[in-house]
Every structure is written in C-alpha cells, then in structure tokens.
C-alpha cells in the first residue's frame, strides 16, 4: 500500500466556548456535526486498524482496543 494514510488533526475548543456555539439556533448544523464526527471516527478507525494489522496486532487485540468483539472488527476489515 503506497497511499499515504489520512491525517486529520482536531482542535477541540474550550468547553465554555463549545457550549456557547452549540446554542446556535440551527439544529441542522448540530446534527450535521454529529454525522461528521461519526464519519471522522470511521475514517480514523479504518486507518488505525490497517496500521495495527501491519504491526501484527491480532483481531482480538484490535477489538479490545476499540471496545468491540474480535468478530465484528474482522467482519468489517478482514480480507
């Protein structure tokens, strides 16, 4: 695999600032943000699982690290 892994850097603002911003009136924005966070999590997960496999982690170890079963990680990422 020659492709460079996805690099995402997150900056989370101060809690107080976050709450103020969330109070912005449009629910579509907050809901979209939740979806975007989920997508980001999926992408970070895919990259990390691949790296773990390259470093010979077992499916069980990866599952434990993600808090899911070995079977579910394997079903999702196994060849």
């Amino acid at each position, binding site marked *: 695999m020659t492709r*460079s892994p*996805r690099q995402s*850097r997150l900056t989370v603002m101060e809690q107080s600032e976050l709450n103020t911003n969330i109070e*912005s009136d449009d629910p579509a924005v907050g809901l*979209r943000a939740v979806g975007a966070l*989920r997508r980001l999590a999926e992408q970070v997960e895919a990259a990390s699982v691949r790296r773990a496999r390259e470093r010979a982690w077992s499916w069980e170890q990866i599952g434990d690290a993600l808090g899911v079963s070995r079977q579910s990680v394997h079903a999702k990422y196994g*060849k």
Partner: protein
Amino acid sequence: MVLRSSAEEARRRGDRRLGTDHLLLALLYDSDSVTARALGVSLESARAASDALDRAALSAVGVKIVSLGMPEPTPAARRLPPLTSGARAVLKRAIEEARPDKTGRIEVRHFLLALLSRERPDAAAELVHAMGIDPGDVRSRLIKSAE
C-alpha cells in the same frame, strides 16, 4: 449501477447508511453522463462541497479539522448498506418518474429528477444548495437532453 456507486460513496465517507447525498454523488461518477452534464459540477467539487459542509458544522460546535488528507482505501462492499428513509423515498420517486416513459426503465435521469424534488434539510438538497445549483435549471437541462 447507481446504487453500487452510492454504496461506494457511503463507504468512502464512513457513513453507515446510504443517503440521498450519496445517490447524488453517484450520478456524477461518469462526467459524460446526462446527469453530470445537467448538474454541471464535477464529482471532486461535489465531494469537496460536502466536506466543506462537514467542516462548517464541526467548527460551529467547536471542532476544527486542520487538515484532511485522502480517505483511507476501504475494503469493497459486500452488500448494500441500509438506505436512509430519504433515499428510499427517492427510489420510489425515481420509479414513478420512469413510469410515463415508453420503456419504463429507470434511467439515471429519473434518479436525478427524484433527487431534485427533495427539500432541505435533506442531505442531497443541502449539497445542491451549497454548490449554488438551481434545481429548476438542472431539471430543464435534463428535460432538454431527453428530447
């Protein structure tokens, strides 16, 4: 075909369900298609617009993504992800759009006509809006190309 590309798009973005935005992006896969020409945007620019919506929403709740690289190549889909209710409605509508045609076959333009009927906050409608596309213009270009 549209569904397969949509599923690919959903997987690429890390979405668990196949939504109307994925259907819209799938209609741009072939830049020579009647749907891509009617929409008048490239797949890349539509994906970028979708990412921009994500970034804007995240920054509104206090999360800033500094850099976004290429998405991780993900394993090929084994089966179609579940459809959002919006995507199911679009499929139904596409079938209705195809009915008056002689062949009754569901073509890509029927999918696009169905998608154009969606209203915000539908995901596809939001994307169309974000790209500054007038659904009426797309509709007329589509009808013209079918004549």
